[in-house]
């Protein structure tokens, strides 16, 4: 259970992540704003409370790991890492500029605090499986967290990884589906329906839960239950809103990779308060 103080702190952190993400992408003029904002609350919870990390020692061997398989949401993670002190906030302004350490899609070799290179959709969960398997045989007391998109769930490789994690009983793997119900070409249900996505993961042998991805307390409770599992990997389906928190793009199907200027970003930041 989150205390009201924790809730307030995490809620503020999520708001800051949204603001920095909006500013960073608005400053550039274009970016994957929708899917970045939909996971801002999850990132606030993971980096604000759940994950064992040390910004002063980003490669700490026993840290918890995050594989952001929907790598295009990188800017939200960069905002999170910068706010946590992994690198200076000023670096956010370099997003996607030539020679930057902050490319559109996550790159473990460039960005301090990024645990896996992602962006070619469908590949991250497999890497998370490898990380979790290694942690298990090395008897490390750490979790591997992974985030996949709902559209990304259409990639077959996820389901190869789904077999694997259940077969090897990777209880140290906790994955999330950012179920924002949109993909590039339209509503997920219109393009390629996921059907009962929670049941799909359950039938593969995962411990599944479904919660509101903008409810910090609900997500925190779900993660705790996931951590109590002893022989099953966890999939937590997060019902989210693509573009959450910025009225100019919230729930707009065009928000996957959207053009907007700094003025628009600033208005959205003011809206967040």
């Amino acid at each position, binding site marked *: 259970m989150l205390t009201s103080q924790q809730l307030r702190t995490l809620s503020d952190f999520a708001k800051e992540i949204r603001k920095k993400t909006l500013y960073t992408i608005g400053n550039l003029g274009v970016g994957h704003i929708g899917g970045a904002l939909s996971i801002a609350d999850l990132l606030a919870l993971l980096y604000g409370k759940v994950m064992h990390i040390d910004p002063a020692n980003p490669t700490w061997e026993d840290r918890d790991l995050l594989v952001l398989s929907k790598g295009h949401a990188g800017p939200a993670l960069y905002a999170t890492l910068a706010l946590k002190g992994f690198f200076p906030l000023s670096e956010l302004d370099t997003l996607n500029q030539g020679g930057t350490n902050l490319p559109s899609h996550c790159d473990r070799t460039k960005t301090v605090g990024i*645990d896996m290179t992602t962006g070619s959709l469908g590949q991250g969960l497999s890497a998370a499986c*490898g*990380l979790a398997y290694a942690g298990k045989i*090395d008897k490390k007391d750490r979790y591997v967290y992974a985030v996949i998109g709902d559209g990304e769930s259409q990639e077959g490789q996820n389901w190869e*990884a789904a*077999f694997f994690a259940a077969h090897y009983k990777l209880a140290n793997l906790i994955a999330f589906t950012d179920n924002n119900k949109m993909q590039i070409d339209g509503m997920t249900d219109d393009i390629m329906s996921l059907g009962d996505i929670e049941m799909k993961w359950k039938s593969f042998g995962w411990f599944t839960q479904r919660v509101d991805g903008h409810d910090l307390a609900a997500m925190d409770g779900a993660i705790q239950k996931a951590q109590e599992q002893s022989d099953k990997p966890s999939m937590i389906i997060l019902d989210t809103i693509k573009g959450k928190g910025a009225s100019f793009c919230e729930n707009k199907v065009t928000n996957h990779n959207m053009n907007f200027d700094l003025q628009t970003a600033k208005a959205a930041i003011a809206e967040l308060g």
Partner: protein
Amino acid sequence: METKEMRAVYCDTLIELAQADDRIMVVEADLMRASGTMAFKQRFPDRAVDVGVAEANLVGVSAGLSAAGKIPFAATFGCFASRRVFDQFFISANYARLNVKLVGTDPGISAAFNGGTHMPFEDIGLMRMIPGLTIIEPSDPVSLKALVKACAEHQGCTYMRLHRKAVPALYEEGESFTLGKGKVLGDGSDVTIIALGAIMVGEAIKARELLKQKGLDAAVIDMHTVKPLDEELVLSYAKKTGCIVTAENHQTAGGLGSAVANFLSQNYPTPMAMVGIHDEFGQVGTQSWLAEHYRLTAEEITRKALTLVQGTRRNA
């Protein structure tokens, strides 16, 4: 004469490495019996991971293991290791600058009865396009053992073509090998045969004898590392013999022939001929039938070398 199967050498070498280094792991996609790594699994059950029939996950899990500090040797048939999981190997392993040792078994015509679906003539070509990747194809059990060890020591991804069956030893036990440094198996002054792999290096040695009967003195190089190419050695033999024949169990487009030509054309244009597959698909057959069909033989190397030397001398 060495009669041990190459896959047994592969497995025994990995076991030897794994005893000294607990980072060494084996990752397989339901082809452990084919790759010959069952003994590794018996020895190190936790460190042999079978992902089932799921090659994309094979590479992805290996990338994750590598990110956790392991040294995974991931093997599957060469066709799957290259064509099927090119993006996974490209992005999750190489672009991510991880340390995945990918092994493609049954190269080229050694896929024999598995036929065209399983016969990689293009894996080297695909792999050569991946920046910084080290690509090797051992020619015998001695070089295999040494090169598996070299792969394990190398920091970065590697792709190794593994001929599974038994082939004769070409080297004395204990011979040393360095990644990126070809081995001269026979010196010569008229023509250089640069060969690759467990089939063609042997054929090149036979061709050297056939050429000797025709009065030609051929050098033979085992170019076990296709990338990085031993440019220094290629250049010195281009200068020394004035013409070069490449021999590979792979498409000449994208393969060893291309690699040598690409280098020489820009540095020391040298008349060349290429023995290999010329824009064709694979098909079923015994390995010997396929070798004849695709002309991956000592006779073909000899024929091309003779024609090349004659043409070069005429134009001189």
